[in-house]
């Protein structure tokens, strides 16, 4: 709910493709869908099922099934050093301190970032912070990753590199963006407008219609 106005209405979706893009203008309800999917927000009516769980069990219990990478890494990163940030989630799901640190070191090594271990999070660049956010969620081994405008603060080369990292993930990816070309390689694109599904289908068709619509509208 944003100022007592419903953000999403009559949404009925089955999201099973490996790469799904959600596109829409600001205020269309894109981010709300992600918050609903990971249990940070609960629907006023209706139900949402992720895997075999209903999202009403809440974000804390869903974090091993579905993980959200926040739009602004500074909102997601809580701890002063990389290793603490990575092991935080694992401690919550029952790892001992030593196990959590070992798993975190392993994932850093997998991504050739072992030298990050004791770095202060504040010293990382925006793109590096974004990668750290992804790694800290990957450690929880969710089957689905949710990305909220992951490229919005990145320069072009960093954005390309991050896109490559995301493309190589084994997990299902559901990504939100207002920028259509992000989804050129995706399997399915859903266009949200005013909290409703405007169009749902192959990227080429949806992107073309979305661009045509954006041309016509004067938003300023």
């Amino acid at each position, binding site marked *: 709910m944003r100022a007592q106005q419903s953000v999403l209405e009559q949404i009925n979706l089955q999201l099973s493709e490996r790469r799904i893009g959600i596109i829409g203008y600001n205020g269309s309800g894109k981010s709300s869908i992600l918050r609903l999917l990971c249990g940070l927000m609960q629907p006023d009516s209706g139900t949402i099922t992720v895997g075999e769980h209903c999202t009403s069990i809440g974000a*804390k219990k869903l974090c091993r099934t579905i993980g959200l990478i926040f739009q*602004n890494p500074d909102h*997601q990163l809580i*701890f*002063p050093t990389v290793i603490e940030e990575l092991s935080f989630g694992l401690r*919550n*799901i029952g790892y001992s301190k030593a196990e959590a640190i070992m798993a975190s070191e392993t994932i850093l090594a997998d991504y050739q970032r072992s030298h990050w271990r004791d770095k*202060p999070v504040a010293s990382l660049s925006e793109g590096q912070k974004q990668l750290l956010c992804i790694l*800290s969620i990957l450690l929880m081994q969710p089957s689905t990753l949710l990305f909220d405008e992951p490229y919005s603060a990145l320069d072009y080369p960093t954005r390309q590199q991050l896109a490559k990292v995301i493309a190589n993930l084994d997990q299902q990816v559901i990504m939100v963006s207002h920028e259509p070309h992000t989804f050129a390689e995706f399997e399915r694109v859903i266009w949200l407008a005013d909290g409703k599904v405007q169009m749902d289908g192959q990227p080429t068709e949806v992107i073309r219609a979305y661009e045509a619509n954006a041309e016509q509208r004067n938003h300023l």
Partner: protein
Amino acid sequence: MISLYLATPTWLHRIRVSYKLLALALISLVLIPLNSLWLWGAGLVLTFVLYGTLGGEALKQLISFRPILWSLLILLVLQWWLAGWHAGVLLVLRMSTLILLANAITLTSSMDDITEVMLWLLQPLKKLGLATELIAFAMSLCIRFIPLLIAILDHLIDAWKARGGGKQYWLVIAPMIIQSLVFSQHVADAINARGGIPKQ
């Protein structure tokens, strides 16, 4: 997120957090009863020397203390008026020395290690049935939030100045409170999205 933690490891990083905290407690206990301005002045100078041995990055951190200088100045004036200049200067020397020493510990200790010491210190409360891990987590979050709140304040003051705002800086208090609350919601989301508060 900005951090009160130094990137390059220094000699102070290598000392155990419990020893550093114990040293701070001892220094405070021994020095506080003493009233000599010379002694406290020397203490402050030695504290700056300590920062010097930690390197340029630590010295740069001292700049983030500017906002505190104002409160110290107010305290100085108040104390001067109420109890004379000696008491005023003494108070300011004492507070800045101890705050800077405590800050040196925060700069060189990871949050995990600080939390561990807190949990150890809180053990007696645990026997009374209190959820000490919650207290320890809240305390470590407090430490994390200090530089963050200073940064929010700096941004607001910059925005205020950039649009020709006058000297009435206190007007940024309301947006400051709103932004802090919004930020606390983000942190709560971040914690919940990763399984809630750690159980030790």
